[in-house]
């Protein structure tokens, strides 16, 4: 990151993104009985994805605040 720039991940409105481990991903896919392609997508050009250095094919776990459920975890597949 360039000097003087603030990480967008520290911003209060940006939910927490993490790259998932291979095993975790496998578990997730099994839980929902889906293939990777059936996950929601996120572009690799997404600012957060760029910052956490996720690459195409990675699955990120997104923890965000939810108006209905308080906390909610979503998963996204990184695409081009």
């Amino acid at each position: 990151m360039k000097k003087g720039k603030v990480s967008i991940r520290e911003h209060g409105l940006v939910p927490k993104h993490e790259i998932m481990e291979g095993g975790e991903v496998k578990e997730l896919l099994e839980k929902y009985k889906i293939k990777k392609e059936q996950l929601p997508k996120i572009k690799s050009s997404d600012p957060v994805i760029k910052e956490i250095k996720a690459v195409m094919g990675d699955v990120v776990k997104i923890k965000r605040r939810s108006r209905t459920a308080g906390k909610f975890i979503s998963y996204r597949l990184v695409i081009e």
Partner: protein
Amino acid sequence: MRTKRIKGIKFGLLSPKEIRKMSAARIITADTYGEDGFPIEMGLVNQRIGVIDPGLRCKTCGGRMGECPGHFGHIELAAPVIHVGYAKLIYRMLNATCRKCGRVLLEGEYFLCTVTDADAETERELNKGVIPEELRDAFKTNDVPLSNDVGVTKEKNGEWVVVTGKNTFIIKKEDGELNIYDAGEKRSFLREIELQREKQTDVGEVVKRVFKEASKKGVCTYCEDYLFSINTEAASAGLENGLNEGVIPEKLKKTFAREGRPLSKNATIRKGIDNRWVITGKDKTYKVKKEEEKLNVYCGLPQRVIKYDKPTTYVEIDEEERERRLMPTDVRERLERIPDEEIALFGMRAKDARPEWMVLTVLPVPPVTARPSITLESGQRSEDDLTHKLVDIIRINQRFMENRDAGAPQLIIEDLWELLQYHVSTYFDNEIAGLPPARHRSGRPLKTMSQRLKGKEGRFRGSLSGKRVNFSARTVISPDPDIDIDEVGVPEEIAKELTIGVNVTERNLVRMKEIVMKGREHPGANYVRRTDGKKVKITESNYEALGEEIDVGWKVERHIGDGDIVLFNRQPSLHRVSLMAHYVRVMPGKTFRLNPAVCPPYNADYDGDEMNLHVLQTEEARAEAKILMAVKCNIISPRFGRPIIGGIHDYITGLFLLTHGEKRFEKEEVLEVLRKIDINDLGESAGTFVSPPGIGMEVPYWTGKQIFSMILPKELDLQFRGKMCEKCIERGLVCEKEKCPREAYVIIKKGEVISGVIDEMAIGSFKGRIIDRIFRQYGEEAAKRFINDASRIAINYILQAGFSFGISDEDIPSEGKRQIREEAVREAEEKVDELIKAYEAEELEALPGRTLEETLELLIMQELGRARDAAGKIAERDLGMENAAVLMAKSGARGSMLNLTQMAACVGQQSVRGERIRRGYQGRTLPHFKPGDRSANARGFVKSSFKDGLSPTEYFFHAVGGREALVDTAVRTSQSGYFQRRLVNALQDLEVKNDETVREIRDTIVQFKYGEDSVDPSKGEYGKVVDIDEIIREVIGTEER
């Protein structure tokens, strides 16, 4: 029958060959019917392209009307014409291809180098997908360092492809040597498109780039234009060496300069295929070729600028700025020259869509079945618009041919050509910008191809996505509070028209016989279907015979009658409760009858609204409607989790009057109120009183609250704050609960109303706490019964008590009037004047983020708003709860205190876009005021009330403000309608699966948990899964703290 799955859809253009092949007849004659009344051979209503006259047979397939689907014909156009739908694509293709050779103006592959030390091992490695060291070196010497992760793939044609970043390289084996080529733009694009195709993704974006890049090029690098040559006898060897080394020899530079084509400083040279070199300057490319001991210099063929004149004209401008029109023939020739292999660059397949097919030489003629003529009452035939258009085309086509054969001057030919183009263009689309629409003799624009398909009434939205249905009825709705909320009153006339098919079995034979025997009387039947499948209409003359004959296996189309389930709908169907299942109740009259309590979900009123009714035809549909769509299943709205069906207007007023204070009722009176509902026990009376007061006897009495309590479930415990609540807690005061002076705190214990008055919060639609609780605790049937009972009590009581509202109810005593005028309004006006004075004296201080003027306006608006509120308070005080309007406003039955204020006290400030009215003349709103007058009166403050009447200027300001409201609603409805359509289209396939995930049609997850908490709003407690407070209260008992 085996079911087939659609694997894919192929789009393409019709080639002239294909058009002729599928044509059953060539059409030459523009006439339709001959004098004998039969279709003319070779004419547009040809017997070989379909039949629309009963009795005639198709000459192509032999089918009769209805059997023959129709066949295409064709017209041979005398000269090619542009297809308007593709005019823009044609233009882009002309721009992207060479005017001479037709190739796409993109750089082809060029030679880079030869791999010097290649052997069999090298190839083997390449085949394995590994880049051998020697190749890596070769790349490096050409300034293309390869990173380690770059691989190589073998193509079908035996070549290898290396992709690094943006560049693509091709390795070819030629004459035993491995040569490396730079793929150039063209190959790169082709590869890219191929890859997208494999991935089955859209190639549109790549194609767009192809057009963009190709149109930028000014020259064709495939065609060559000879410029000059250099005699190389003397220094040939030296020159050639220099060329091969990648430096431009000085001598060559000088020659270029001498020829008037100086090379730019950073011009580069590279070796091309067979004894050629390419010099790339700033924006020019030259080729140097060794031919017969000479070095000949060529440049690419310069392209000319093409201008596109909408809709179908192309003009080429040459180097001398001369314009030459490209006739469709020229355009077609150019498109023909585009090689098959390069068509893919445009995202098309040469096999299915050659570009020249976009220029029409043959026109398909749709079968007559697609453009049937209608016979008017006068016996005259009226042809379809498409036929009219085809007649025009054939006429001009014929004239064109005749004129050309007669050797008419070029000018006339061109005019006719233009006319032919016009007719063919409007045949496809009669709404082309820049072309006057073709019109019918009456002046009506013709409905041609595009108009048939496009828009709301077009084939897609009008005929395929939506069409008219049988077994439906539509009429005006009117109220009937005596029918149940899940009933619908159906006029007998309609009930006799709508039918349900019933199969006759041993069990219902007797009943069906009775029904048929009724003939045309109401609970009868309209048709019977016999065992042989023949449908017989029941008439006055045959019903007795049919009734005798009827037997098991027949089918009877019986009238709908009381208790049948039907669907009832009001447009716009914005949410699911716009269509609900009701039970039929046949009644006299001509309107559908509807209980007012079900108006809110349909958003219906009785000012002339019409509604639709659909009769369900299968047992499955009826079961589904009963279980899912019945009114009682939809009392709670899935949108906000509160009842959407409930009391409105008089229902609320009635119950409010009944339960307000402590009204005493004698036994007879109680029975009168309860007479329409099923109550067997009045329970204990509240006490005794003397009735009539003073003269009568001591009799037991019941209170209004007691009467209402009789319809509540016996165990119901509930407390809530009613509509009358003035938010004491929020204002920092103490809520007095059951001692509330306004009776705003409702306490229900063991099914008895202990305190509080029943109002909108208790039984109103959208709010109704009691309905909500009964629904959740006792189920939908109990909730339905409660609403029915409550509305009956309400109506019975209000009928008895009487309730009316008139102009005199807006009267305020003169003291109140004076206060409004002198205290509320005048004071505000004075304050406004002071503010203006302060502003003019520049004493006013601007609020943060606002200009001085904005501040002034804001303060004035506030002041005038306060004035109206103050006036409203005075009016409220003077009118009191005895006033019908106040009662309605307070109980939530209808209207608001603001409405009342405006009627009785002061209408208040009129506004446009949230500001005081400013528009009109320069510096003033009306000539009645001085320019620059900012006072309340001059800027739209209406101090009169509606009752008193408005002054002329006030009336005008009110109209100005009112117009904005009118425009707003008009704009909002159309906008929200379109937005709704888009949302529905986007979301219609989403589904909540059993694992609570929301998925779309391909099972791709959209949301991992429905609503993130997987709560159905209609099942949860106002957005929460459970209402903890309520459960605690239930468990520990209803004791107060």
